């Protein structure tokens, strides 16, 4: 087990290093600079001094090595645009917000998605199956900002159940979380339904019924577990996606989350913020993939992650 974790850890580091390197050089290959605003260049002397301040006047290779050095110390550097704030501060302030929103939307999408998928599979080709399919197709096809607009119109403006925007109490979480969860819920529902239909035709379901087990036990214990395996694969990337925030949803609901910084940094060529958010997102994704593998091994005993000793 220990050697497995160690091996995975090393391969995770290598993956991260590749991502950092590719992002770094791609980012610098894009024309423009942090100090350019709408085509207006700064005073050459000021610009030169600023470039020197952020080490941008050095050769790219030197910048790369010094970035890696600070990265190893978990130092993501100062933001060029929002100076004197550092990237660490920005992530530290905005990630908990995004994560909280993401957690609740994920919770909803997993529960509702699995329930919808299971019910649709059990009532295959009946009315409720068609309704569930329509909901999933809408969920995948309709962008979340449209869902968000509708939610605000009805739940906030007309019925005044929840606040329309900003951040603070649990009431503020409900609408953005729902808007954000609609897409993932639809994807999970479709996956669950397809797998469930497949599993229900398996002979071991027949065996379970032949034991005289209650239909609910047959479904929950024998069928659901085996149909959720592919869904878990999906969850890894969905979680990372949702936790790091959605630019659009955060913008609509005026939520101080990470999504905003991610997008702004690219507009502004805020090099350190681009790198910082990318590294953060990648790390999260890599860790989640690792966790998915572990969970996989727990749910499906056929998958052996490592050789048992003895």
């Amino acid at each position, binding site marked *: 087990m220990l050697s497995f974790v160690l091996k995975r850890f090393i391969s995770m580091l290598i993956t991260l290093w590749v991502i950092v390197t590719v992002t770094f050089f791609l980012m610098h290959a894009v024309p423009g600079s942090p100090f350019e605003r709408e085509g207006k260049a700064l005073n050459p002397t000021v610009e030169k001094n600023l470039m020197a301040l952020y080490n941008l006047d050095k050769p790219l290779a030197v910048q790369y090595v010094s970035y890696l050095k600070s990265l190893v110390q978990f130092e993501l550097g100062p933001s060029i645009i929002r100076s004197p704030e550092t990237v660490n501060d920005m992530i530290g302030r905005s990630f908990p917000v995004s994560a909280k929103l993401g957690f609740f939307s994920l919770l909803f999408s997993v529960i509702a998605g699995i329930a919808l998928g299971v019910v649709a599979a059990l009532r295959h080709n009946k009315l409720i199956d068609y309704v569930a399919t329509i909901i999933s197709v809408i969920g995948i096809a309709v962008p979340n900002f449209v869902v968000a607009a509708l939610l605000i119109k009805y739940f906030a403006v007309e019925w005044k159940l929840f606040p329309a925007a900003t951040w603070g109490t649990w009431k503020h979480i409900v609408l953005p979380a729902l808007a954000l969860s609609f897409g993932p819920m639809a994807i999970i529902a479709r996956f669950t339904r397809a797998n469930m239909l497949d599993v229900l035709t*398996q*002979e*071991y379901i*027949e*065996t*379970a*019924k*032949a*034991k*005289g*087990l*209650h239909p609910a*036990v047959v479904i929950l*214990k*024998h069928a659901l*577990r*085996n149909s959720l395996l592919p869904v878990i694969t999906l969850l890894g990337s969905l979680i990372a996606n949702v936790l790091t925030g959605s630019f659009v949803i955060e913008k609509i609901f005026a939520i101080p989350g990470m999504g905003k910084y991610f997008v702004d940094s690219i507009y502004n060529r805020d090099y350190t913020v681009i790198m910082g958010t990318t590294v953060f997102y990648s790390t999260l994704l890599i860790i989640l993939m690792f966790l998915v593998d572990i969970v996989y091994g727990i*749910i*499906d*005993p*056929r998958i052996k992650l490592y050789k048992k000793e003895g």
Partner: protein
Amino acid sequence: MEKLLQVEDLHVSFKTHGGEVKAVRGVSFSLEKGETLAIVGESGCGKSVTARSIMRLIPEHVGKITKGKILFNGTDLVTLPEKEMRGLRGSQISMIFQDAMTSLNPTISIGEQIMEGIVRHQKLSRAEAKAQALEMLQLVGIANPERRLKQYLHEFSGGMRQRIMIAIALVCKPSILIADEPTTALDVTIQAQIIDLFKTIQQKTGVSIVIITHDLGVVAKIANKVNVMYAGQVVEAGTVREIFYQPQHPYTKGLLESMPRLDLDRDTPLAPIPGSPPDLFAPPAGCAFAARCQYALEVCRNHQPAYSSLGTTHQVACWLQDPRAQTVYPLQAAK
């Protein structure tokens, strides 16, 4: 001996896009305590559907028992409420399926799969259930049961898997065990072991067995009684001796003749039955086998043959054996 199971005039139909398939058309038989009944016939003759009807495990939305009775200790299983039927499944009547690889759950430990039936039916604690599961694994010949209990399906060989299937089926000490082609997916040496296991278990527990197979070798080894099925009907029923030594229905004869034999010259070609079974969307008016039968008469094509008794245990549905038929002396007798 008392009648444990009595099937009377069972009809089962399936709804498909092409119409209604009459898979079982008037099957009757009985099973006594401690007896082994083999149901033989080619693929699609309705033998598995008959077996599943006894368990009431035909898929509800497509298949339906349209007529007939299945009396188990006097209770009609056809009309029994589903809840009571669930109480019988696995505790009074158990079933083993063909391929243990696909019939066991790959993500639940073998022990749990054996124990859940006991916990469900006998309301025992987990420790007591475990003790019974261990005992059962020993009975079906699995070494190291304590360790094996925690393992998963992929850690067992084909023969072992079928033994586990048997353990699961027998753990609640049912009075009837239905085995649907239990040896078909196994290789020959393992087949023989599993058949021996069935015999041992029957001696120890007195369970009655209904075995579904197309392998006449298996039938000869294990069965007391044989039902030969063709196109959803029992065409001949008798003791294993009667079926093997005095087959009367042309289909039974054809089945026996199509088996490879060790006592003949190696170059002797196999003798298959020409043609294929009738379409059960629209079963023929007369004898279903008439189209393939070399002895078919006009009456065979137009009228269903009734059962003719050839002794207390031997019955055949064939016009040639009808009491009204003319006596025909075989050529050898004329010599």
